[in-house]
């Protein structure tokens, strides 16, 4: 397992260096959310009603913008060949890279969500389901996103394609994340929604591992 942790640590270190992905993605997340009050007006009641939706949709977009470089650099500098030739299965390489991607994008987004919620006048009832939902949903975003990122390797206009491929597949993650918040606001039980969000994460684990590894093998061929 030490090869796995070595890879996760390298990718996190790369993303958190000066000019790395992590800060840029978080900046994108915060700025995009700050645009909404300009777009729909500063009315606290309106903002409060759509706050959870804004945060979730922006979290989806933040996951997308950082995906293009998930495998591309490793492909271009030859690292991917070496990752594929290690005794560790390529499926685990994909999962390690997804974990690193989540640690530098999904996790900070989840941690920042309460602050953003406060700025958008989110209902106090909604904080817990929003954050738990994000904690379960954002890893699924990294995993499903990795499938898209690996499929477009070597494609023309790869970066622009990722969004088209991945966003439709993100819809369930978004829906169950939001429905947890809606249930809390309506005074209904939240747990079923959270459990389904967890199930989506569980399904996306093997899906990303196998589809991602298959697409990477294709890209190196």
């Amino acid at each position, binding site marked *: 397992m030490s090869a796995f942790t070595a890879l996760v640590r390298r990718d996190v270190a790369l993303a958190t260096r000066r000019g790395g992905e992590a800060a840029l993605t978080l900046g994108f997340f915060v700025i995009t959310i700050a645009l909404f009050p300009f777009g729909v007006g500063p009315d606290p009641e309106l903002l409060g009603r759509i706050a959870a939706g804004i945060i979730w949709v922006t979290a989806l977009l933040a996951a997308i913008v950082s995906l293009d470089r998930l495998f591309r650099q490793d492909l271009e500098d030859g690292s991917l060949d*070496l990752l*594929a030739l290690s005794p560790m299965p390529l499926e685990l390489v994909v999962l390690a890279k997804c974990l690193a991607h989540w640690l530098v994008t999904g996790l900070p987004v989840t941690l920042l969500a309460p602050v953003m919620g406060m700025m958008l006048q989110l209902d106090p009832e909604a904080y817990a389901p929003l954050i738990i939902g994000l904690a379960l949903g954002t890893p699924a975003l990294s995993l499903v996103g990795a499938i898209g990122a690996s499929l477009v390797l070597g494609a023309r206009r790869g970066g622009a394609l990722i969004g088209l491929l991945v966003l439709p597949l993100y819809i369930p993650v978004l829906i169950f994340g939001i429905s947890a918040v809606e249930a809390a606001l309506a005074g209904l039980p939240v747990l079923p929604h959270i459990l389904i969000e967890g199930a989506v994460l569980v399904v996306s684990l093997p899906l990303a591992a196998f589809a991602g590894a298959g697409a990477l093998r294709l890209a190196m*061929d």
Partner: protein
Amino acid sequence: MDPDSRNPALIAQSLSCERGGRHLFAGLDFALAPGDALVLRGPNASGKSSLLRVLAGLLEPTEGQVLWHGKDTREDPADWRRSLAFLGHGTALKPQFSVGDNLGFWSRFEQASRTPAEALEAVGLSHLADLPASMLSAGQQRRLALARLAARPGGCWLMDEPTVTLDAASVEQLSAMIAQHRAEGGIAILATHEDLAVENAAVLTLGVRS
């Protein structure tokens, strides 16, 4: 030199490769025992890189198989991958990391038996260990990539144009490195245009297309 009499470790059997509807090579057979070296020669696009990638297991051969200590490297790749060190066109370096960190990652990831410090010593880069890799010249970056192989003695080195961008002194250093690797029972297979001094190496010339 009759490799079969010395218990070959790596055997290629009737390897064929086809890329984009074009036959690169067909029916290649060779066997290499510990300490052997094989030099691949041939013009550009003759399939040297593809052969190395087929041997490594990155590319599927159209026909044939590669055996490592009697095991098919496609069906049972674990032993082969533990013994294999691959140097492709890319240097697999991250410019943001220091020289030492770059090598350190690959050493941990590939579970190298030599320490990064020893490997840097072998390619003469010890004094630059704390510099960012982006500051290195192309030749120095290539040497750093070679240090990754130096950290993993004893197995099989697959090297694609290892001398590219190297100066004369570094080429000599590489010759010595390969010689030592072979003396320790390693196998080296390299594709190269130039005349890198590799003593007693078998030569395979590709590029005679049918």
